[in-house]
């Protein structure tokens, strides 16, 4: 009995120690391992294998897959970085986190020839999202912009402004045809993206260029007015204030909507999930606020950065350059549907078939709008989403004033996050 217990205890102790031993065993003597912490990407392992082969034994990238939800990814990385974990080498960051990580000195800047190599041929919008305080802190990996998807069997010419779109939808509704305008309105980042699209299209500013002061100028009030008008005109779906990307995609595939404002990933899903509807769906630039001024839309996507605590920073920089090179970006664009951040990739003939909407994406990317570039973006986004939800309850002037105070508190890390 006592012996059995002792054996069990010893076994338990060994089991506890084994993973620790695995952690402790460094790459002494062997090939240095570079840990890449990134959200799940389809076929990412193929890209990593390609780079490992090209490195020819200089380094070996290991893919540490983070959770699917953006918040969980960020919390896990931030916890490790706050504890100065030196087992993280390359970090896959959402475009909105770069400033935060840079300001906290958690990621290294790219300098000299490395910086020049990354900047060469990379689109300006994604590059801005990777820059903080005039320095380049991350390498843009993929990018993203929302498009207007519409039913060409119902709408002969795409609307260019929100007013036109709302009128067209109401007309279809009166005729008893599918009429809804579907987009994301739940209390989360997607609502902030919608707000940012409208603000940028109206020429407004939420936060000053240096990211230190809340502005909320005339343009933001216009944006709030359009948002309220859209939410109350009777053109949205009943679950607008509770919808995220996939809810919107599915509702459109069901044939409920005439218009959908969503990321390009909906295209390939539509071809496979709703083949009878797919030929009737086409795309256009995101609607503007004024007919004369083209819309400006929010940039999404991800960047690759090198941890400040990495034990192999130079190798990690080389690995980043390989992971995001033009060939690998093209591979992931075709396989995983990620829009590339290097302009020349769009011109590749293979892209035409997988990415027929590439010209529309490129046009929007040329003058796209970043989200407020501040290290406190996460806080700003949380308070903005809380203040704007539900969009039908917006009172433009009052909401703008309340937002200004809440955003300033968030930037000064004075406010309580909801």
């Amino acid at each position: 009995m006592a012996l059995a217990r002792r054996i069990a205890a010893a076994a338990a102790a060994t089991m506890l120690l084994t993973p620790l031993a695995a952690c402790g065993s460094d790459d002494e003597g062997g090939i240095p391992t570079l840990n890449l912490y990134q959200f799940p990407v389809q076929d990412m392992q193929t890209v990593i294998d390609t780079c490992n082969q090209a490195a020819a034994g200089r380094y070996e990238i290991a893919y540490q897959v983070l959770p699917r939800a953006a918040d969980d990814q960020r919390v896990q990385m931030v916890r490790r970085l706050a504890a100065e974990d030196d087992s993280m080498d390359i970090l896959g960051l959402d475009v909105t986190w770069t400033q935060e990580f840079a300001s906290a000195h958690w990621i290294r800047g790219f300098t000299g020839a490395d910086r020049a190599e990354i900047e060469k041929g990379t689109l300006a919008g994604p590059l801005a999202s990777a820059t903080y305080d005039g320095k380049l802190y991350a390498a843009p990996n993929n990018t993203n912009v929302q498009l207007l998807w519409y039913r060409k069997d119902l709408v002969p010419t795409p609307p260019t402004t929100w007013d036109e779109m709302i009128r067209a939808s109401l007309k279809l509704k009166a005729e008893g045809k599918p009429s809804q305008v579907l987009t994301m309105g739940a209390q989360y980042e997607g609502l902030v993206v919608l707000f940012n699209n409208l603000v940028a299209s109206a020429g407004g500013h939420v936060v000053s260029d240096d990211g230190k002061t809340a502005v909320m100028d005339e343009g933001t009030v216009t944006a709030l007015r359009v948002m309220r008008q859209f939410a109350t005109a009777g053109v949205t779906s009943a679950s607008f204030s509770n919808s995220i990307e996939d809810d919107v995609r599915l509702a459109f595939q069901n044939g409920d909507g005439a218009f959908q404002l969503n990321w390009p990933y909906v295209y390939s899903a539509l071809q496979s999930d709703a083949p009878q509807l797919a030929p009737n769906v086409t795309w256009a630039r995101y609607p503007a606020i004024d007919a004369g001024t083209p819309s400006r839309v929010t940039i999404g996507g991800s960047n690759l950065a090198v941890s400040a605590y990495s034990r192999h920073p130079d190798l990690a920089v080389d690995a980043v350059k390989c992971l995001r090179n033009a060939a690998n970006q093209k591979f992931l664009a075709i396989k995983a549907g990620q829009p590339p951040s290097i302009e020349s990739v769009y011109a590749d003939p293979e892209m035409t078939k997988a990415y027929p909407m590439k010209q529309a994406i490129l046009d929007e990317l040329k003058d796209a709008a970043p989200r407020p570039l501040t290290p406190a973006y996460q806080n700003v986004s949380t308070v903005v989403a809380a203040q704007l939800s539900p969009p039908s309850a917006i009172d433009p002037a009052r909401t703008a004033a309340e937002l200004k105070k809440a955003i300033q508190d968030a930037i000064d890390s004075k406010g309580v996050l909801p």
Partner: protein
Amino acid sequence: MTAVVEKPRKAARSKVALSEGKRQERRLGWLLCAPAAIVMVAVTAYPILYSFWLSLQRYDLKFPGDREFVWFDNYITVLGNGYWWSAFGVTMLITVISVVFELVLGMGLALIMHRTLIGRGLVRTSALIPYGIVTVVAAFSWRYAWTPGTGYLANLVTPDGAPLTERASALAIIIVAEIWKTTPFMALLLMAGLALVPEDLLKAASMDGASAWQRFVRVMLPVMKPAILVALLFRTLDALRVFDNIYVLTNGANDTRSVSIIAYDNLMKGLNLGIGSTMSVLIFLTVAIIAFIFVKLFGTAAPGAGDEGKR
């Protein structure tokens, strides 16, 4: 808790002059418990004092350069904030409702476990299963059960609604999950109290013509009072810190945040050590006040300590 109870005793004794031997004995007693006391202080006092120290600063990991001492500014911010009070209200609501239900159901369960003659071990073990399941695992099964499409409960109760996306129904589900989970724990504590009720007393009451209800209310409850109060104190303090169920079921959406959730969001997601620590200190104070009320006003004491005090 014990310190509060022991104070009057110590004061009374110090009036009596101690003999040399007694004093020696007392010194030895102090020496013997010193290592344990030092470890306790190191593991509990240090983090408490450190979070109090953090709560007096503007300290945000995103802006390491802007760290400064701001006295009680963070307290003014938190106590003047609507989100905090909403979370506080939700926490209180969950605590009061779940503890009341747990007390009633737990008492019933305790009586069953106490009175069972056949298969006693089996009954007690099966009653304890919910408490034995990891909260996160249980919470996930509740979540899937209440999600339209995957769940049997969602489609049963509301054919075309999503109960976890509306405030009232989401709070009700959180409370049900809490009650389901901790009623066995309550029953266990109450069963210990039931064991204190002498069989002879019940028989005597029965002889005097007391009905079953009268025996329960007039004999069992008064004898069990210390055990009930301890059980209530434990569960109230526990329920105040509710986190895992909410984290899994709603993650605080639709104003279902508890104080622990909002503190976690500010600390872990917001990286704001100042505001987050302020919230932790405020939770700590709330817990301390409630424990104080229980001990001072209701006379809760650790089992056994009460008798000694009377002696």
